[in-house]
């Protein structure tokens, strides 16, 4: 039988090709569940809080006319800038994130460098020891520090029994506890990219430097560090960006004076039920982090290709 084939336009054929269908599965998922939600955050940040369910005014008002009128207000943003609490929280988060990134880098570099230099037969097990805490619950690891740092905790008990101090130190509920918690929790995120980079390093370059009379410390600063820069950058982004919005650590280890924007957002949302202000806090935090996130993405793409 001679049936005339139905002609499918070329652009439709292309759009529904197997290749595009495969791409579209994860693509559409991420568009709908990762990107689209931000539109709602933006929308609600422009609404006003009211006592209702959901607790914000609607963005579109359906009136007589065919098109809805848009009713948005910048009140939430103006409020953020008028109250010094929010600006201080952003600045304080920035300070805590920068300092803890530097601390994590120094400690992480020492560990990653030593693992990379360790005899080959040890490296596997050492790397496993780094990865294990990375997989272990964040919450549990932060919780573990409460018992150590609190006034009648294990650290004070140990220090008093040795005789180093006679009155317990107040570490719990201070910024110091937050720094300890952040460095501890994020250390594996720093060590892994650093190690991946240091392990691949061409040792002959270091030998060349030594042969030409370069002292070990100078070789480290002028050869090793510049060569490991991609690892340093990846590690710093992996620590800095999430720490900017960290909630669990300042909430459990920090005190009432520890201001971090992630905690402010949580309080606005869950305790004050001010969804528009919580959304505005999120939008500004996102705006601050967009550039670091894009730099991180570029660095990662480069590293993999």
């Amino acid at each position, binding site marked *: 039988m001679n049936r005339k084939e139905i002609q499918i336009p070329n652009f439709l054929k292309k759009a529904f090709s197997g290749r595009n269908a495969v791409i579209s599965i*994860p*693509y559409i998922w991420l568009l709908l569940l990762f990107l689209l939600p931000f539109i709602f*955050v933006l929308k609600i940040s422009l609404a006003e809080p009211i006592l209702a369910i959901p607790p914000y005014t609607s963005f579109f008002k359906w009136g007589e006319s065919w098109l809805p009128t848009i009713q948005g207000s910048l009140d939430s943003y103006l409020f953020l800038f008028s109250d010094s609490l929010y600006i201080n929280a952003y600045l304080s988060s920035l300070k805590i994130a920068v300092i803890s990134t530097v601390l994590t880098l120094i400690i992480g570099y020492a560990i990653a*460098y*030593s693992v990379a230099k360790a005899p080959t037969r040890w490296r596997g097990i050492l790397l496993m020891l780094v990865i294990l805490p990375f997989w272990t*619950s964040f919450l549990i690891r932060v919780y573990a520090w409460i018992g150590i740092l609190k006034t009648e905790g294990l650290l004070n008990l140990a220090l008093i029994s040795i005789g180093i101090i006679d009155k317990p130190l107040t570490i719990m509920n201070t910024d110091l506890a937050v720094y300890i918690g952040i460095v501890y929790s994020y250390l594996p995120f720093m060590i892994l990219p650093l190690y991946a980079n240091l392990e691949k390093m061409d040792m002959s370059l270091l030998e060349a430097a030594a042969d030409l009379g370069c002292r070990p410390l100078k070789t480290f600063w002028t050869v090793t560090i510049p060569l490991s820069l991609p690892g340093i950058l990846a590690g710093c982004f992996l620590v800095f960006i999430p720490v900017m*919005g960290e909630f669990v650590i300042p909430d459990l280890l920090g005190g009432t004076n520890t201001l971090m924007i992630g905690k402010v957002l949580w309080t606005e949302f869950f305790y004050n039920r001010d969804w528009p202000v919580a959304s505005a806090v999120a939008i500004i935090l996102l705006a601050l982090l967009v550039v670091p996130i894009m730099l991180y993405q570029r660095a990662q793409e480069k590293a993999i290709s």
Partner: protein
Amino acid sequence: MKKFGNFNIFALVVGFSFLYIPIILLILFSFNESRLVTVWGGFSTKWYVELMQNQGIKDAAWVTIKVAFISSTVATALGTIAGLVMTRFGNFRGRTLFSGMIYAPMVMPEVIIGLSILLMFVALSINRGVFTITLAHITFSMCYVAVVIQSRMSSYDDSINEAALDLGCTPFHTFRLITLPIIMPAVVSGWLLSFTLSLDDLVIASFASGPGSTTLPMKIYSMVRLGVTPEINAVSTILVGLVTLGVITASIIGRKQKQQTI
């Protein structure tokens, strides 16, 4: 370069002590007879017995396991596709946005992801519960799987696929019969990673959950806020033990696979 020296030994000993002492103390004090978590009162497993009788924790654990199992399975499927798309599909339209959506969730503060996904569910009047937590977990876990697959594919020998295609294999069959078996260890470790990420998540689950869907981290968090108790140590010890077992299993699978290919 100087050989592995005293400084390196010092760095490793101090570094690993810092990483492990808190966890070891936590485990140790879960077997403490005394209710005081800082005073040793003798060995006892009574907190584990007490844990088994705590219905709230058991319910939360069940919710968590269900969410983790479903979300890691779906995330592994989606993430594997995403990882292959990133490495084997060249330059398609919208690639930069796609890779942005893969990398951003891995570093983006959890409060932002949690808030945004919750606001969307509310705006679309989707009832929050186990289902919404699962959707949220799939979304961020699949990005980790995609990166695991992507880095595996960077050392993948393309000529095997070309051979299969030359011999008349369809792209789908090439994937199923050639690519998938080769990258299976990466897929398995992606699944395990997703599972632990889901098991671990407090912040995003707190936003995405509704009444009656408390996950284990949410339960632990509410207990921690009331103070340190040996019961929390006991439940933590069980979780740490499970994760350790999983990681060791994954590394054994990986090693076996390596030996087979050599």
